């Protein structure tokens, strides 16, 4: 396929996108050749979407050149890009569910007759496009009546209407099951064989290795490099994606020193075969008092989903849970709270803070909810509690009556921690507690977690930053492709080992 490398259809060189003061993309190159599937890899915030948007004209680069078929080109937007044969299909299907399949496919390219639409031709042409995709559905049926996978294929079908030279697929597989993914890959391969260049974004490493010919890796807005997929071991890819720094070894040693697991104790929370369809495969996990368990894995590996099952935020389909040895069902967050299990979501804005309420109200919310509305906490007790946490966690501004939306991200996170600490939990599950907050606040939260564990609390700590997980965890559970694949002691954990496990199959 890639023997007599044809000239690239898209050649981006030194592309830079700035949103002052942030540089979202810093001098990145990307070469797309006809008849190849090219994976674009990188963690959250690496610049993948920015790069796609720079290519399709959503953002205009502040530096660099974009050559399409050898000629410099700046698109005015996705419609312009599409007119030049560059189509994008996004993760969420951007189609009209209430229109028919044919209408969706032909939207914007409808065959016309006498100023009106030629419905029959539209259906006939749509049917031809569908056949090319190997999709056997009625073009006249409404799109909403089909599964998400079919809708995804219809979206791709729509993207290939007309002259399609480059097809960009942004996370097309995240909501598909194995058979559907296989079908999608078959379609991708047949398009590739027709000479289309496909840019494929996915967080599933196995899939990237299965289908891609070549890949470009980004990290923190910069280019790591372009690689031939077959020549790059998965572990090396993961290292490229997450990077590594010098203090890692040191940090791991520090964690190892602290690790003193109580021997023979009953786990505070023990789950066996807990799982949920489409979310995370059944897993076992024991959580002990006084221990920090880190969850490591790439984005989409199932770390958040696992945490949500532990805390009742999502309900498990299968498996058992025992709290201090007693069987229980963690049906909802309230039940979990009753067992002393607290959970802060990674989605701080959507599922964490109540931004129209004050710091005081946000801190007492969970405790008050647990007591029920009829037993309000006495005002003096509330004031003492709130003042205590503001002082202990250093919440700024130190004003209980400040509206939460006027606080910085780090301070909002501290308020969330205070909300849960106020309920005196026995197990605290923190999902990305340090994301998007400044370095100082980050260090404070890490220190707090260590202190809480030292005081006997059980903590589950999730972070996209592997170094952070290594630094503060006594034990690390590793997830890959929605499965818990390993569990290792903090003392035995080296960055390389964890990276190998995250990368899986290829090098473990």
């Amino acid at each position, binding site marked *: 396929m890639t023997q007599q490398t044809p000239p690239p259809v898209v050649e981006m060189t030194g592309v830079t996108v700035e949103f002052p003061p942030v540089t979202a993309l810093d001098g990145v190159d990307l070469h797309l050749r006809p008849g190849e599937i090219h994976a674009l890899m990188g963690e959250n915030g690496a610049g993948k979407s920015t790069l796609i948007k720079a290519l399709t004209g959503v953002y205009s680069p502040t530096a660099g050149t974009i050559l399409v078929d050898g000629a410099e080109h700046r698109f005015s937007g996705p419609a312009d890009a599409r007119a030049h044969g560059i189509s994008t299909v996004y993760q969420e299907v951007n189609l009209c569910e209430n229109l028919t399949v044919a209408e969706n496919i032909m939207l914007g390219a409808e065959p016309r007759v006498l100023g009106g639409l030629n419905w029959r031709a539209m259906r006939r042409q749509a049917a031809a496009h569908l056949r090319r995709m190997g999709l056997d559905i009625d073009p006249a049926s409404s799109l909403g009546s089909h599964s998400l996978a079919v809708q995804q294929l219809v979206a791709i079908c729509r993207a290939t209407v007309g002259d399609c030279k480059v097809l960009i697929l942004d996370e097309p597989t995240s909501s598909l099951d194995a058979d559907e993914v296989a079908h999608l890959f078959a379609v991708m391969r047949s398009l590739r064989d027709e000479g289309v260049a496909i840019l494929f974004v996915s967080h599933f490493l196995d899939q990237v290795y299965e289908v891609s010919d070549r890949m470009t890796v980004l990290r923190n807005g910069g280019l790591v490099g372009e690689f031939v997929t077959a020549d790059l071991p998965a572990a090396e890819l993961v290292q490229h994606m997450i990077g590594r720094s010098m203090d890692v070894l040191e940090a791991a040693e520090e964690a190892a020193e602290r690790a003193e697991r109580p021997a023979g104790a009953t786990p505070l929370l023990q789950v066996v075969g807990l799982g949920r369809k489409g979310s995370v495969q059944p897993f076992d996990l024991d959580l002990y008092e006084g221990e920090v368990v880190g969850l490591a894995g790439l984005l989409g590996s199932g770390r958040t989903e696992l945490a949500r099952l532990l805390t009742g*935020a999502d309900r498990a389909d299968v498996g058992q849970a025992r709290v201090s040895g007693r069987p229980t069902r963690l049906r*909802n*967050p*309230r039940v979990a*709270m009753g067992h002393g299990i607290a*959970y802060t*979501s990674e989605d701080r804005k*959507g*599922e*964490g*803070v*109540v*931004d*129209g*309420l004050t710091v005081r*109200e946000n801190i007492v*919310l*969970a405790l*008050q*909810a*647990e*007591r*029920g*509305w*009829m*037993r*309000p*906490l006495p005002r003096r007790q509330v004031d003492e509690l709130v003042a205590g946490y503001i002082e202990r966690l250093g919440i700024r501004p130190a004003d209980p009556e400040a*509206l939460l*939306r*006027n606080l910085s991200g780090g301070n909002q996170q501290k308020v969330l921690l205070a*909300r849960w600490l106020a309920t005196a939990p026995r197990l605290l599950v923190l999902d990305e507690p340090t994301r998007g907050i400044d370095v100082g606040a980050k260090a404070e939260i890490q220190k707090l977690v260590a202190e809480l564990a030292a005081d006997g609390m059980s903590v589950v700590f999730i972070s996209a930053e592997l170094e952070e997980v290594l630094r503060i965890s006594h034990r690390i559970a590793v997830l890959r492709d929605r499965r818990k694949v390993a569990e290792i002691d903090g003392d035995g954990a080296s960055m390389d080992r964890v990276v190998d496990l995250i990368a899986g199959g290829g090098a473990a």
Partner: protein
Amino acid sequence: MRDVLRHHLFWPVAALVALLVANTVARPGFLAVTVRDGHLFGAPVDILRTTAPLLLVALGMTLVIATRGIDLSVGAVVAVSGAVALSHLASAPDPAAPGTVLTAIGLALALCLVLGVWNGFLVSVLGIQPIIATLILMTAGRGVAMLITGGMITTVNSAPFKVLGSGFWLGLPTAAVLAFGVFAVVAYVVRRTALGMLLEATGINPAASRLSGVRSRTLTWTVYAASGLFAGLAGLLISADTMAADANNAGLFIELDAILAVVIGGTALSGGKFNLSGTLVGALVIATLERTVTVLGISPLVTPLFMALVVIAVTLLQSPRMRERLTAVRRRPTTGAQRPAARPDPTEVTAG
């Protein structure tokens, strides 16, 4: 002075005062209250009486809106309540017997509570959008009332029941005493317990509230039930005033007046923070406005237009964006920074 201007009740109260002043100018004795037969008489007393049913409906509406919902069915519930009560009285051998009257009241309130529970079920359990869920009962409810009255306007004589609508208690209109009493009790309960805060949390961020262990579903269900119950009580006051149950016209458009009262009172339709004292002022403004129309002798032809103009003025003054502009004009932008970020857009208002 600045604090007074910024107070959330400033503009609603200013509108109320302006209306009262306009009335007094047109009719100098407007504010006079006299004692006759031991009862208070005068335009202000009448306004309190006409505010009563609206206040009850608006009270329920405020709580529902706090949870991001809306209850369009209250007008129909008002009609059902009156139909049940008067039909029961009319079919009883002695409509004036205390037992009969109490049963009539009990039946009406119980059915309205059930209707509220139905709304709450649709919204909180089945997850139907509040506007659609309550629209069902808004149309079906009048049918139910029609069924109960057999398509007729039921009239009946029952002195004890009539007291609810036009009687006096300690010199004040019974209806007003009841409505303001219920309002005060509910306001006290909401703010003295944690109910208010939990409702606001649910309205602002349902997902975060659920994860924090707030029983959002139960709370939402409860406020719709309460809204039905309060609308039922309002229906009793209205039907007792006229002693006639008109399935088609009782409580017609009261849902719009109630929503308006809530908005004038400064509670955003987007849910969350709510303001019961504002709703009280809002209800008074609307009742006073209706009175003003007759006092000023405005022709019935232009009455809707006049009311619409006043409502537009009040809601504009309530809108945060408009206020910001006014503030910016009045002072150079030196003090602008003190004001916290503007709330989400004020809501559009349908003038009833």
